């Protein structure tokens, strides 16, 4: 793909399409395995962030990367190495104000950046890029945390930059942003370039068509189950400033997929149901009885289990044995009258799971941290299965696993449904959600957009809902 001076070029793609990796290559954070990068027709190698800076490539992210305790002016000039060793504060203030002027922005450059709004912090980052004579400005989801008013101002700034001849690569999940500001639109899918077209030739529907169509051939086929009684009912669940209006019912033996793009707040719904970050409005009913879930202990008591997307940080105690990890949430069951751990009972239950889920390890006394990712995930699943959950929330259960391990986890999910467990599957992989779920709840920026039956769900429809381009009215179940 080519970026022209003075154009705003939108980059679209589903989760995992390769947008972030492309940014990392352009800004020198990672090195490409193949292919070439040219700046002004000259082939270059972007070996580091410093080299990217020298080439005039800069990036602004959704969450600004600023130094909160430094002033606005200091943040703008933090990367300058061309002014000798002594800081001339007066000159720095004047120059900072001059740069902000070019953007048509007024800020007190002496203020610490901490007190600024996200929008103002982004402006500081753009000013920083401008002061470094930026040629290519990459903006990764810059509007995700902004209000409508702030978005308009940001677009004003972006257009001013375009007027100065800067090439802008604009990445966003918000179709309306893209169609409002982009001159051209490029779509990536599965790490490949799919299309580049002038905006006038693109419609939301055509863009989504280009984005979907990932292959489903390798994916697991569910064996049909007959859903049982309603186990979980959620009405108007909300957490202030995070998500709102989430409602669904879930039957025993059903798999409900939670689909959405990055920032859709699906994980937050899971965390609310598990009591880590409790909801502050709405009702949760388990077996038709209203329950209050304020802590993981509450969740476990009513039979809700949750496996985290961050297996490394939150899933397992690595130095502990497989057995000790498996029994951690239920340790009380394995204590003798005097509070001592009954190792034999603990080993026996872990051994049972080791065989049932075919965890490949020398023994159940092996340290959990020494296992492969797939086997670690199976230990995590064992740990929660051992709580005998009614509702099992699986957050990105196959992330980072190889193909074989993924298939095994899919097999396990299918078996859970067969055993009458109600499963909530949070996954960023659209084909996975479609293949595994009986119903699919689509979220976008903390709001429930639609619920599809697996029969009526297609990648296109789910993605359209996730991007706010709803073809069909939201189904409220």
């Amino acid at each position, binding site marked *: 793909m080519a970026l022209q001076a003075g154009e705003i070029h939108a980059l679209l793609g589903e989760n995992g399409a390769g947008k972030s990796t492309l940014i990392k290559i352009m800004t020198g954070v990672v090195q490409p395995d193949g292919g070439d990068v040219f700046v002004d027709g000259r082939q270059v190698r972007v070996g580091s962030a410093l080299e990217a800076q020298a080439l005039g490539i800069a990036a602004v992210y959704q969450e600004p990367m600023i130094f909160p305790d430094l002033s606005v002016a200091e943040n703008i000039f933090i990367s300058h190495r061309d002014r000798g060793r002594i800081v001339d504060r007066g000159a720095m203030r004047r120059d900072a104000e001059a740069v902000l002027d070019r953007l048509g922005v007024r800020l007190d450059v002496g203020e610490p950046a901490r007190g600024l709004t996200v929008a103002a912090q982004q402006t500081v980052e753009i000013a920083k890029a401008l002061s470094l004579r930026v040629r290519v400005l990459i903006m990764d989801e810059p509007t995700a945390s902004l209000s409508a008013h702030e978005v308009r101002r940001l677009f004003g700034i972006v257009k001013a930059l375009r007027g100065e001849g800067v090439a802008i690569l604009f990445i966003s999940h918000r179709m309306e942003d893209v169609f409002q500001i982009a001159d051209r639109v490029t779509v990536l899918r599965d790490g490949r370039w799919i299309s580049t077209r002038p905006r006038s030739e693109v419609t939301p529907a055509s863009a989504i068509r280009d984005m979907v169509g990932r292959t489903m051939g390798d994916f697991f086929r569910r064996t049909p189950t007959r859903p049982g009684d309603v186990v979980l009912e959620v009405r108007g669940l909300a957490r202030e400033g995070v998500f709102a209006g989430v409602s669904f019912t879930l039957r025993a033996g059903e798999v409900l997929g939670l689909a959405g793009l990055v920032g859709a707040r699906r994980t937050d719904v899971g965390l609310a149901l*598990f009591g*880590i970050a409790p909801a502050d409005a709405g009702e949760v009913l388990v077996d038709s009885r209203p329950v209050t879930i304020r*802590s*993981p*202990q509450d*969740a*476990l008591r009513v039979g809700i289990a*949750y496996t*985290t997307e961050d297996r490394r*940080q*939150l*899933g*397992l*105690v*690595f*130095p*502990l*044995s497989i057995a*000790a990890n498996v029994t*951690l*949430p239920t*340790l*009380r069951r*394995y*204590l003798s009258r*005097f*509070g*001592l*751990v009954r190792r034999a009972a603990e080993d026996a239950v872990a051994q049972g799971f080791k065989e049932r889920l075919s965890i490949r390890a020398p023994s159940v*006394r*092996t*340290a959990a*941290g*020494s296992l492969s990712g797939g086997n670690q995930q199976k230990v995590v699943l064992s*740990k929660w299965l051992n709580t005998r959950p009614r509702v099992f929330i699986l957050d990105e259960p196959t992330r980072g696993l190889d193909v074989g391990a993924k298939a095994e986890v899919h097999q396990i999910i299918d078996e859970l449904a067969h055993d009458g467990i109600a499963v909530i599957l949070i996954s960023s992989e659209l084909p996975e959600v479609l293949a595994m779920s009986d119903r699919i709840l689509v979220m976008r920026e903390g709001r429930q957009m639609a619920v599809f039956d697996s029969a009526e769900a297609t990648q296109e429809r789910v993605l359209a809902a996730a991007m706010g381009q709803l073809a069909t009215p939201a189904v409220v179940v």
Partner: protein
Amino acid sequence: MARDIFRRLVRWEGLLLAILAVIVVVTGIAVPGYLNPQNQINLLELSIEKAIVVLAMTFVIVSGEIDLSIASVMGLSAVLVAWLKEQGVPVEVGIIAALLVGALCGLFNGYWVAVIGLPSLAVTLAGLIGYRGAALLLVGDRSIGGFPEWFNRLGQQPLLGPFPLALMVFAVLLVGATVLLQFSGFGRYAYVVGSSPEVARFSGVRVRRVKLAVFAMSGVVSAFAGVLLLARLGAVRGSTAEGFELDIITMVLLGGVSIFGGSGTMAGVILSILVVLNLRNGLALANATGNTQAGVIGALLILSVLVPNLVAAARSRLGRGGSAEAAVIPKLSDL
């Protein structure tokens, strides 16, 4: 096979045992009568209160925290018994009051750390100053003695055979602490909370409760050790037990308990106590000054922190599996 031997050698307890053997053999040859049981008992007796607190401190550090206020709690509890005696309160009642105050001190520390979420380093540093201040307020810089005969006898004379009370208390507590840390559900929670507090929280472990309990235990045990110290010394002043916290923390860390929490064993800690005491004694017998003793122990402590990390770094460089963190703490997998 070679790898297994390497692992066993690297196990901290093995290393400590080797160091202890060297110290004992060298001193035993150089100083006649050193290995005499009575000498070993005397040696232990002189630091027995510290050794008792080391047991509680092990739990604190395993759970990923630190308690700097222990020596001040020891001093405060000893002073409290003495002050109450002056007010006409029987020593028996005074001891109970001291234990209660110790528990309150520990709970106070634990409240700020576990419930409010402040760093224990800061909270217990405040405790170190505050509890010591309370002791000084009660008695000023006077020395209070004149305790009942039975109380002094308990502290100063052998109770059973050659063993004084404090030593037997230590033995009982050592067994109890070992069982609690290595075999009980509570011990498991302490390791988990120290190793991965977030995993613990996500697993429904009541992290706050575990930390509160650990700090309360540290307070009670310190207060109890303060009373034993009072009985042995026969008199107390506001500055009693000042500076003990450094020796106590040194013994725990030298025992292989990671300052980052989540690893270490009671076996290592008891070996470390023996190493420090014998090293001190041996050096003293060799006419080394107190400063030299402190220097040698300081060097050992630095080594105890450095060596496991260097080994871990070397291992991960050799690609012997796992992250650097995982390699520092191979023992826990035996749990």
